């Protein structure tokens, strides 16, 4: 681990050391649990496809993770940072060619059918591997899933696949679907993709577009006593400004994913009965990344990319845009990652003079108007912060003589422009680090990715050395060696700058103090909330 400073600004780092937080979870259980009640939370989006086995994204998990469970969930105290869900144990073979899961007994689907290893085999082979955004990479060598009995599933791989990767990916990629509902017809268009059927603590009751989602208690849940809540309502509040006042008026009891604007946190933390919680997002760290289109002649020049990296004042970004609720980034792995992070990489301190010198060296002198060249900048519209960073980056580039024209699009148009049409020079993306670089990080710089895959290398960047390193790490079974390879990976990315990492941030939950057991695991907002309860 690198040395970490524990001031307010490094809040992510503060909660990063998973091992050190072993002592935390026992504290909250002093109070007696009260059962029943309804939890109303704010939802800011209505995903078109709510199936987490197909769309493994936080917007989907936020709602669907209460209904459809993964094999294992992230945990502060569990071994390897995992807690069992539908699987009770997992073990990888030494040759990396198989992983054996023992599954939980006496689990029922919400429609009453029994859960078995066949459901896991079906989900893995028919959904995770061919259809899921992340599973496609992780399970690419999955050949077969053997089911010797109803509670054992053995995954067979055609090429050695690191068990460390499978383990790190389990909470995100292993949502299990009911085979009997999905085996007929087109999986992608199954009505159960909205009217979810799972094994989780809550059943999907109702969805009113533009108004709410309603989940109700699953009486037959396998967990003892849980779930505690009778109902969870997701009130659709697309206006982020509205969440704060709704909390104060007690119309909602919880707003996750920083739905309350950062600028409002200071004020709302002083309101009685409301608390601001920055824990519970450690396993879903977001990264503020400048994506670069290497097809542009100027941007294909390393000196220009270095100049851009030097032109960005990361401290300003953290302090002003994220109001301290973020951490400056040095490379593609965030500082709060306990396994892979290395700070021993090329860094680009804020230095306008150096940036100007690099651009002069690269052969792009300023013209009479002081402009070296112009480019198109597309900030992702998903977060206030990505848009604001777009405004900031435009100004930062202007100081070094690069004229950036901002192009604002809605979410769909942005994805198409950047990831399918490549109609950008620079783009700003909120990528997610999911606990292992092979899950959703290496894909950002790897070459040979088909057009249209969101959050992947669509900038035309190709570096054979880096590609070889990614391939090697993908099949390295020894955990220490694998970790070393990913440290190499970070060094190479920081040196050659296929993209520029600016800052890493976690989200903030704002909740009424009556809501208990909030943020008790590193993916809390997207976990199952079985043990959440409300004090009346």
């Amino acid at each position, binding site marked *: 681990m690198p040395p970490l400073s524990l001031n307010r600004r490094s809040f992510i780092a503060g909660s990063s050391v998973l091992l050190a937080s072993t002592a935390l979870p026992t504290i909250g259980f002093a109070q007696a649990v009260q059962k029943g009640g309804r939890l109303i939370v704010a939802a800011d989006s209505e995903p078109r496809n709510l199936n987490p086995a197909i769309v493994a994204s936080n917007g989907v998990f936020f709602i669907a993770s209460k209904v459809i469970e993964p094999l294992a969930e992230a945990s502060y105290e569990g071994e390897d940072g995992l807690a069992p869900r539908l699987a009770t144990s997992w073990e990888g073979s030494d040759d990396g060619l198989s992983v054996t899961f023992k599954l939980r007994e006496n689990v029922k689907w919400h429609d009453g059918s029994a859960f078995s290893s066949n459901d896991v085999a079906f989900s893995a082979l028919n959904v995770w591997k061919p259809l899921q955004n992340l599973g496609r990479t992780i399970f690419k060598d999955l050949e077969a899933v053997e089911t010797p009995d109803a509670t054992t599933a053995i995954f067979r791989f055609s090429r050695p696949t690191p068990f460390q990767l499978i383990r790190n990916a389990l909470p995100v990629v292993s949502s299990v679907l009911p085979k009997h509902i999905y085996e007929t017809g087109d999986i992608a268009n199954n009505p159960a993709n909205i009217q979810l059927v799972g094994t989780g603590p809550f059943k999907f009751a109702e969805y009113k577009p533009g108004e709410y989602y309603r989940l109700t208690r699953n009486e037959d849940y396998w967990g003892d006593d849980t779930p505690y809540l009778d109902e969870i309502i997701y009130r659709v509040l697309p206006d982020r*400004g509205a969440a704060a006042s709704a909390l104060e008026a007690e119309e909602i009891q919880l707003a996750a994913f920083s739905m309350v604007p950062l600028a409002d946190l200071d004020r709302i933390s002083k309101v009685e009965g409301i608390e601001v919680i920055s824990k519970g997002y450690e396993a879903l760290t977001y990264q503020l990344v400048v994506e670069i289109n290497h097809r542009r002649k100027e941007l294909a020049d390393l000196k220009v990319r270095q100049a851009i990296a030097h032109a960005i004042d990361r401290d300003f970004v953290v302090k002003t845009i994220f109001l301290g609720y973020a951490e400056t980034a040095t490379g593609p792995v965030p500082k709060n990652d306990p396994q892979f992070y290395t700070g021993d990489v090329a860094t680009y301190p804020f230095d306008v003079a150096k940036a100007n010198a690099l651009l002069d060296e690269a052969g792009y002198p300023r013209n009479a108007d002081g402009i070296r060249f112009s480019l198109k900048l597309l900030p992702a519209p998903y977060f206030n912060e990505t848009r604001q960073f777009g405004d*900031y980056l435009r*100004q930062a580039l*202007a100081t070094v003589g690069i004229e950036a024209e901002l192009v604002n699009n809605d979410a769909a148009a942005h994805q198409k422009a950047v990831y399918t049409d490549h109609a950008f020079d620079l783009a700003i993306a909120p990528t997610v680090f999911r606990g292992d670089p092979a899950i959703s990080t290496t894909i950002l710089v790897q070459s040979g990715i088909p057009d249209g895959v969101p959050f992947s290398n669509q900038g035309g960047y190709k570096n054979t050395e880096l590609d070889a390193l990614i391939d090697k790490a993908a099949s390295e079974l020894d955990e220490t060696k694998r970790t070393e390879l990913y440290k190499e990976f970070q060094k190479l990315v920081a040196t050659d700058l296929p993209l520029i990492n600016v800052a890493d941030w976690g989200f903030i939950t704002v909740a009424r103090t009556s809501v208990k057991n909030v943020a008790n695991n590193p993916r809390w907002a997207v976990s199952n909330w079985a043990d959440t309860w409300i004090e009346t």
Partner: protein
Amino acid sequence: MTLLRTPTALLGFTILVVLALIALLAPLLFPADPLAIAGPALLRPFQDASLPLGTDRLGRDVLAELVHGARTSLLVGLAAAATSIIVGSVVGTLAGFIGGIVDEVLMRITDAFQTVPGFLLALAFVSVVGPSLPVVVLAIALSAWTGPARVARAEVLSIRERDYVAGARAIGMHPLKIAFREVLPNALPPVLALSSVIVAAAVLTEAALSFLGLGDPNRITWGGMIAEGRAVLRSAPYLSIIPGIALVVTVLGVYLAGEGVVEASAARKVRA
């Protein structure tokens, strides 16, 4: 001047002249890029003499933004009004002058545009084509040209029966030449009276589009400033209030001036 006789008109024109001056002189008053970061973020107004109206979320000078925003607002307002009046009067003149099937077709098209709420039309247009200043102007004009078209048609219908039109026909003038040389200029004054309403509506529509994130992101607009300020409405309300006041003053100025024009022309008619 009869135009400035009423106090409302005088007030309206004063506001407009001041705004126009500010907009024209913006590059001299604030020569630096108004989007540049000028100081600490969220500085309140009247704290620092060099940043009299404070700074926004990124530390940009609110006064500089306000002044440059006036350029965008007025530019969009005038350009959209000009476009819609030109398009509207051409359509109206053709419909009124030619009559028959052409009149029917053009007026049904006008009806079609009138039945769709103007703002929705603009919203749809911008989100399909992508936000930039010319697109925003076109989007606003798209819904605003129907008013001038109807008024122009009504005027043309009465003018085309006048003797001088018959005279022009008799000497063998080309019908289109009659329509645009003889008829349109005489039909124009009542159409122009609509311009103040259109300018005011255009300024508001532009602000609303920017507020929804559909303005040109490379230009400062008052609507965009309000939208930016909304995220910090509770902690820094001045960021929304200041551009809001600017918007109110502008629209008020345009309305009052327009009122003045209408009153003045009515007075002229009475005397005549």
